């Protein structure tokens, strides 16, 4: 590729771009995590009260069912996305 010094800085840069990409994914996932539980399930429930779900409202559904389903989706999405990111940056396990 290039000479040794530049490949070393390249490696360092790549490690830091890998890490910042990871942090971005984590932040997006945690925003969704907080939105469905603290948001829809608790704080924003009054705003969702107009949407009826089986004898109650959407906020109640998020608090007792929906948030758990979203948590599951988030973890599997993160695992899949990170395995792809690992490969892109060449830091995956051999």
């Amino acid at each position, binding site marked *: 590729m290039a000479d040794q010094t530049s490949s070393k800085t390249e490696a360092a840069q790549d490690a830091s771009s890998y890490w910042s990409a990871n942090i971005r994914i984590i932040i997006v996932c945690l925003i969704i995590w907080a939105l469905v539980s603290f948001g829809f399930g608790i704080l924003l429930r009054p705003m969702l009260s107009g949407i009826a779900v089986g*004898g109650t409202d959407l906020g109640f559904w998020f608090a*007792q069912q929906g948030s*758990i389903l979203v948590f599951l989706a988030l973890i599997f999405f993160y695992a899949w996305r990170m395995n792809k990111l690992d490969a892109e940056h060449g830091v995956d396990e051999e």
Partner: protein
Amino acid sequence: MDQYTLNLLVVGGTFALYIGIAIWARAGSTSEFYAAGRGIHPVTNGMATAADWMSAASFISMAGLIAFTGYDNSTFLMGWTGGYVLLALLLAPYLRKFGKFTVPEFIGDRFYSQTARMVAVVCLIVASVTYVIGQMTGVGVAFSRFLEVQNSTGLFIGAAVVFAYAVFGGMKGVTYTQVAQYCVLIVAYTIPAIFISLQLTGNPIPGLGLFGTHVESGVPLLTKLDQIVQELGFASYTGHHGNTLNMVLFTLSLMIGTAGLPHVIIRFFTVPKVSDARWSAGWALVFIALLYLTAPAVGAMARLNIIDTIYPNGTQSETLVYDERPDWMKNWEVTGLLKFEDKNGDGRIQFYNDASTEFAATAAANGWAGSELTVNRDILVLANPEIANLPGWVIALVAAGGLAAALSTAAGLLLAISSSVSHDLIKGAINPQISEKGELLSARIAMAVAIGVATYLGLNPPGFAAQTVALAFGLAAASIFPALMMGIFSKRVNNVGAVAGMTTGLVVTLVYIFLHKGWLFVASTASFSDADPLLLSIKSTSFGAVGAMLNFLVAYVVSFMTEEPPEEIQELVESVRIPRGAAAATADH
């Protein structure tokens, strides 16, 4: 065959199964106690983690707390599942890459400090012992019912069984035993729920039945429930009645605590690869979600069934005659966890909200002199199949499931306590020359002391099983989680900062809990109550989140005022952040 014999047979049968699997699996892998997990598929590991994780609090206690409160206790559902997101995103892959076996080891190495390691050991012990108290409460309830004895007798028998089970030891390390325990507990939890959901809503999936239509009345189940609880003066089931700030902080405490509890974290140290650590957390949550999606349905439907039993012809007509009460009430009266007191002497059971001032007039008009039935919330899940008139084998199965949940977690925690005392504390600090025999002996003594303390406090627990367990989560949230997270996500936090942060988090949270629950949980020494807490509306169970924030704050401030961590520690953090080389990280052992 009577119920008592059937209970003994089913519970005994499941125990024989666990021991059988342990003996069978042991023969192949006696040498590699921990490494056994390395060859195991993420799905199997996820199932074993779920068994480890779901304790008496999840199985026995949680649905009861939801049943009697409704929406406000959704906190348990969101908190105890949402923590897995934090675990999967913020801790599991990095701790796996780091490749050590205990949480204090990571903290000691990352913060290059023996003091930090010792502080972590203390945090771990305090959180775990509190957790075991909650388990003992659940074990006491389960044993008292299926052996038909007083609650305290049940607790002593349970303590003896847990002790024997934990000393039998290695069992805990055998993943396949835990897989069997998971299967028993999930089958035991869902079968009655499916039956009841079919009876009430015609839908075989309880989580859907909860939002379905109540067959008998033709209106949605939750509408029906809201209506009848309000007719008895209770707060509506789906409404939000508690304090919002407290609800948010409580959920957050449970979430952070989940990601800070040593016996769960440890499972992710032993998967084969970093990518497996990410997947394992997902699979664990799949198996946990099977129970957690069912629990709110169990709670709501049980509440409906109990009221239906006491008011057979609707809430506006005559209540149940005490002498005609169903068998499940008689059975639970034996344990002392269900009590009837005929306050107005009419020989009938009245069950309503006698604390409601608005309802007082209606009650007086009916000639009621107070609610006459006291139901301990921890009995609800175990009594549920009896309340719904399900066959005897289902009742026995639920008892076996409750015991599987309580025993697996209690034994796991006792092992975590004893290994941190003998390995981290005695061998790591007090007496490095201790012989292997001495280490083993000190581990057994630590275990006996822990169970003695937990049993004593379990006789007069600081709350229902899930509430006591929630306190343990608060302690783990305030002390361990922030240290782990900063250890990975910050290169700047140093030894002094971490020690100061953990100490602040633990001490402040513990003091806050003791001020409300009594010093060392002796209730008479409490200065405040959770009904009227010291700060704003923050109950002692919710304070863990505040403790965690203080931990972060103190650690950062102190770190920035003191020296940067040395070069090699910063490199260590760099290496923990990338998956490559994970196999080498564990080869050192």
